[in-house]
């Protein structure tokens, strides 16, 4: 039996919403049927209309009234999502939350996808920094306990929109929490740096892990395996500096180049979170098709 495509909506037609639209349109198991915004004539709504996708300027109300939806991607902001989440749940729509609201559990496809999808009706995509660094911490923690993980995410200024800038504290706090809850570190810290250099730099993440550095050979292998897992959905994810031991810590550097769908290639930070979100939705579609839930 051919799998029925799940019907999806995007709430928030900004940069992230448009990038999601282009990715979902390539999906074999998802069908984008609605783009919801609140400002008529916005770039995202225009692009959706031109592609023959229904649009609404009535935000979440337009989504609920549209009916017959399986999945909603929320690319608005933390405060709007707090309002959207209960309404989506009530309407039986699975929510993929790309805001820092974190109503549902954190999900990082390479690490904890199925365990969350089978039980949650709302999942949170952490942050771009979390998507890039949690897999590495998790891989190292599989080899030897990570007492403390610290990550430094450097983004090009052009790729950090007003949402990131006005919520920079939420970014560091959410990333730190995911390093602990999903990465498995006992304690963690996240630092974000905006770099305005022109041409824009690729997203770059340094991951420091305090652990038993004598196990470096196994750590390298685990990190390389994990990198390949992430590359399956984010092909521009690259191990820039392979793990090396430095005193009581292991240092790893990863770089993320975007796919260049809507956002330029230097926006790897945005690409890794939209890619992860679509991967989660596709996995949800597959599990649903198989009757696993």
């Amino acid at each position: 039996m051919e799998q029925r495509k799940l019907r999806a909506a995007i709430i928030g037609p900004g940069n992230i919403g448009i990038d999601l639209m282009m990715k979902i349109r390539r999906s074999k198991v998802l069908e984008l049927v609605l783009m919801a915004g609140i400002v008529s004539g916005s770039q995202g709504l225009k692009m959706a209309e031109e592609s023959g996708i229904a649009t609404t300027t009535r935000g979440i109300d337009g989504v609920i009234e549209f009916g017959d939806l399986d999945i909603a991607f929320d690319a608005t902001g933390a405060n709007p999502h707090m309002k959207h989440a209960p309404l989506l749940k009530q309407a039986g729509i699975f929510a993929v939350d790309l805001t820092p609201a974190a109503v549902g559990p954190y999900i990082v496809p390479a690490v904890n996808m199925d365990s969350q999808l089978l039980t949650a009706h709302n999942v949170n995509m952490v942050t771009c920094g979390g998507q890039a660094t949690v897999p590495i911490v998790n891989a190292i923690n599989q080899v030897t306990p990570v007492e403390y993980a610290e990550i430094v995410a450097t983004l090009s200024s052009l790729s950090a929109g007003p949402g990131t800038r006005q919520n920079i504290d939420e970014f560091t706090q959410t990333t730190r929490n995911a390093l602990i809850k999903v990465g498995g570190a006992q304690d963690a810290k996240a630092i974000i740096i905006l770099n305005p250099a022109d041409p824009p730099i690729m997203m770059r993440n340094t991951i420091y892990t305090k652990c038993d550095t004598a196990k470096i050979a196994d750590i390298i292998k685990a990190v390389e395996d994990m990198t390949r897992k992430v590359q399956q959905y984010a092909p521009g994810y690259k191990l820039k500096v392979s793990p090396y031991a430095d005193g009581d810590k292991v240092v790893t550097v990863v770089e993320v180049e975007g796919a260049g769908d809507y956002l330029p290639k230097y926006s790897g930070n945005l690409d890794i979170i939209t890619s992860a979100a679509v991967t989660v939705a596709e996995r949800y579609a597959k599990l649903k098709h198989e009757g696993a839930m």
Partner: protein
Amino acid sequence: MKSIRIIDSTLRDGMHAVSHQFTPEQMAMIAGKLDEAGVDTVEVGHGDGLGGSSFQYGFSKATEEQYLKAVSEALTKTKLAVLLIPGIGTVEDLEVAMEYGVKTVRVATHVTEADAGEQHIKFAKKSGLEAIGFLMMSHMAPPEKVLEQAKLFESYGADTVYITDSAGAMLPHDVRARIGLVSKELSVPIGFHAHNNLGLAVGNTLTAIEAGAASVDGTVCGLGAGSGNSQLEALIAVLNKGGYNTGADLYKLMDLSKEVEGLMHRPQTINSDSLAIGYAGAYGSFLLHSRRAAEKFGVDAREILLELGRRKTVGGQEDMIIDVAIELAKAKSSK
């Protein structure tokens, strides 16, 4: 006689020079004597501000709470300030600092990224603190851009806006152009924070005052990142001679400098590496990190610093030092 506000950063920027290893007792001793000498404000904490203690920047000897508690108990008149770099420190960290009598927060962003500090300035104002916007690496943007970003800080409610020469890369005419324009266009006081990598810290600070700055930074013995800051004792002597009123007692500061000398890990000089920072326009606190990476990967620290300047790295990017050192080592071995 024109009055100039002095903010001492010996116990914050000076921490870079001792790899963040002052003890709370040492801080309390220095802060008590700065108070006695009549210094207006002291800034305290890890060199990279609240939340700075880390693998990336080095761990400090004690916790923020321990430092703030010790210093706040030693102060009678002098105001207590902290630095907050958005992306490193958070409002949560600031709330903890407020429990120890912090009255002033300097919110520091790269010169083109003031909007990353909006939430922190607004939070500080709502909480009754004095909020200072602090534009780091100001040599990297032309005066008009510096003005645009300074206006952003003013619009968020900042009480003072600082132009900061984090790389010690400015010449006097660079200082005059930026401070002159910003102090003409803004209604709040303007401040200047110098570094001495090109040997110009005290001179540039005087230039800033002549161009309109009303608040300036200094550190005892010049202690700070790179070649250090404007040396407070020398600055006060210069300002006394220039007919400015700072409220600070020169002799008491001179006496304090002898005690601080005893706590220093190395003389605060302009050496070839810190000079390279000023020459290349790289962030001052890259100095000791670059020396360690140079040793680890067998390359020249100056080459690392010059390359970091070429790549337009910004404050806080200490992790790029590793990348650059590894690449230089590879290039060297393939020759």
